[in-house]
């Protein structure tokens, strides 16, 4: 049995995927982390006490887990949803009534979104109260704050997409609040967001593109930096 496995590990195919050998020495253990795409952001060594659950409460990991759920369900929802005034609400109704597990998808997406906002916020509180923003991690705190803003923006842009009364007035109120930014800047931002002066077809398309492409991509880039920094500073 042992021989069989050894044969596999020595095979050309296996070695082309995993260049390092079995992690039997400190060197090969380190190589296993360096050469793996998924593990390479990991520090090669972690302090034992930081592995304790109550040290971080796993909030960062939960946030990224929820983000993955959201990307996955969101991509599936995109298959059925058309961001047009005439179709949006009916597509939602079709998801609810005729798409297989459509309502389940929507609910997953929605609850994961709510949970993500809450958990990202808790994550920030944890970092704040444990003083984890202190040097040398000040910049990562800043990126974290940006990610919090992005999370909230993702949640807000997604709010318009069902195109019901709640979304319509939610976005009307939100963009009107933006308008009160002084020196005429508010009006400009609001116009830019809505693609006009009122919530309509243009606003729907803009919010859709923001929600499904621009903000998620920004989030992924920032998350990459965020995680990379954590690992380099010895976090999990």
């Amino acid at each position: 049995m042992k021989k069989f496995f050894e044969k596999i590990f020595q095979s050309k195919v296996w070695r082309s995927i995993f260049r390092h050998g079995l992690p039997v020495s400190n060197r090969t253990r380190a190589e296993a982390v360096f050469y793996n795409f998924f593990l390479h952001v990991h520090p090669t060594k972690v302090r034992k006490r930081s592995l304790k659950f109550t040290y971080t409460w796993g909030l960062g990991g939960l946030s990224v887990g929820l983000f993955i759920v959201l990307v996955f369900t969101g991509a599936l929802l995109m298959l059925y949803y058309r961001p047009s005034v005439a179709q949006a609400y009916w597509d939602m109704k079709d998801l609810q009534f005729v798409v297989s597990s459509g309502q389940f998808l929507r609910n997953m997406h929605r609850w994961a979104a709510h949970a993500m906002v809450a958990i990202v916020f808790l994550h920030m509180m944890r970092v704040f109260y444990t003083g984890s923003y202190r040097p040398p991690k000040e910049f990562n705190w800043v990126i974290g704050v940006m990610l919090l803003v992005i999370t909230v923006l993702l949640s807000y842009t997604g709010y318009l997409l069902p195109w019901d009364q709640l979304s319509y007035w939610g976005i009307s109120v939100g963009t009107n609040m933006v308008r009160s930014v002084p020196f005429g800047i508010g009006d400009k931002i609001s116009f830019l967001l809505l693609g006009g002066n009122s919530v309509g077809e243009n606003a729907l398309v803009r919010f859709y593109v923001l929600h499904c492409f621009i903000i998620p991509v920004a989030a992924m880039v920032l998350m990459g930096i965020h995680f990379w920094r954590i690992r380099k500073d010895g976090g999990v």
Partner: protein
Amino acid sequence: MSNLRKYFALSSVIFLIVLALAPFKDYFQEWKSYQNQYNVLVNDLPQRVTPVPIGIKQLWIPKFDRVDRCVTCHLGMKEEALKNVRQPFTTHPHMYHDVEEFGCTFCHEGQGSATEYKESLGKVKFWDKPIFPKEFMEASCAKCHKEQIIPQAPILTLGRKIIQESNCAGCHKIEGYQKQWVPPLDGIGSKVNRTWLVNWLKNPKAYSPKTRMPNFLLPEEEANILADFLMTFKELPNGVTLESAPAVLTSASEAVKAKMIDLGSTRFKEARCISCHTVNGKGGYVANELGKVASKDNKEWLYNYIKNPKHISPDVAMPRFRLKENELTGMVAYIESEFVDYEMEAQPEHTPDPAFYEKGLALFKKYNCNGCHELSAAHKSEEVGPELSLIGSKKIYEIDFGKTTIDQSLPSYIHAKLATPRIFSPAMKMPNFQFTDEEMQAVTVALLGNTNETIPEEYIVHAKPKSTFVPQGEFGKIVKDLACMSCHVMNGNGRLVATDLSMEASQVQRKWVEGYFKVPYSLRPILTERMPNFFLPNDEIKTIADYMEKVFVVDSLDHEITKDAASVSKGKGLYFEKFGCQSCHQISGKGGYVGPPLDKIGSRLKGGWIYHWLKNPQAYKPESIEPDNKLTDEEAEDLAAYLISLK
């Protein structure tokens, strides 16, 4: 630590189970169970009904932008064999429109895209149009049917009629309804007495149960101020002045008075006043109640009004009877002696508020009295009620239900508003029309039908353009003076209470017309409306007959009938044996009483008309119950020959 791991493990398992349940939930759906039940049900039936393949079914109606999935569960809609099975499988009652073309929710409302029972009813959040309760269903007909009378939708038709007649358009803007004529109030001070006015303002229906005036629920004080205010308007419009009533009305001795009353009473009956007016609730419904009129209007006004109604009130429908001076006086004396309200509530001694005029005018405007009644002191009304043209599309979140606990839906809102107009806020001003339940339902239906839905033009059934025919010249003057068109239709214009006169001269003989004005009689004993006797002089009768002969003619109705004895006897045979006409018509006292008696029919009708009428009665009067016996030309000629021989 180990505890934490246990929790972690447990929660993971729970999440896994939840995740595994999701596809199951999708698999065991309500509609699938219904479709399976349906297939079991039709298998057990003696008749052959095809089972359905399992799957969502829908009607897609792109024209109306609707997708209706009701048919996913309502599977037996078109299966006659399923008439007596349970819902949702039973057969649909008679459908006026093709379901493939119109879908379900176009008429029923509700959430068509839903595949769950609760959701499909649409009584859920974010759905504006829940399914219509059965009693309000006809509202949907109104989306396309703009015509006046829709035989298949009697409730809607009634509702529209009530809205028109109750003059809702006086206060509310409603597309398709015009303001009705209502007596102007200038001169009311010279017409009525104050006691009557106060009582009337407080509760109009106490005086006349059928009045169209609603109850404004005025407090005592407001009614008094408004009465004081209105009593100051003594001058009639257009500078018309009242002649004083003949002195003999007050000064005559008892014996003379009795004679006068006797004459008045005779003329009152001969003129058939109760053809249009009611007296204590009995009589026609065209004009207003007379039972207590002597306690309302003073002698002087009554005298002037009966003498020449249009002089006092130019737009009123009352005809001018050709009464002689003594007959006129007698009529007034009769009314004064007979039509008294002995139970009229006396008003306590009253000192007018010093600012009654200003306050009265303010009240007059507050309740938008001038929405219906004209008054020189108040300008044209601003329509104070909300527009009702699109009320059927009012969203539930736009409605303020106040502190009421009624069902939160548009039909119950409208219904409650009609039943208790100020239920949602005491600050509201809408009066109480005291509708019956049936009337309220009808009005609610008609209002619910006013939606903002855009219907493709080819589906809309427009109201027939109204004829504007008004006879001119000498005849026109008589028609106006006698208000003929309040009961008769001429070339499509007028109100159809009595007959349509548009082809009168092709139907009846001139001699009969002339005689009829002397002694008008009802052609059918079972009818209540009767032609009044206007006491017309001969020259006016001649003008009428001349005009009819020249204008109210349809050339195609001419048909020469040969009146030889053979033909007459053949006709008689057809009458009594082949067609059994005597089961509805009477000749010399024998026969049924559904149709008019046919004695002396030969002195009334023209042969050509009888011939054409017998061949196809419904062509001339679609609602006639005269059977269409598919007579041959010869049969019709013989029957006509027999009938005109009855002189």
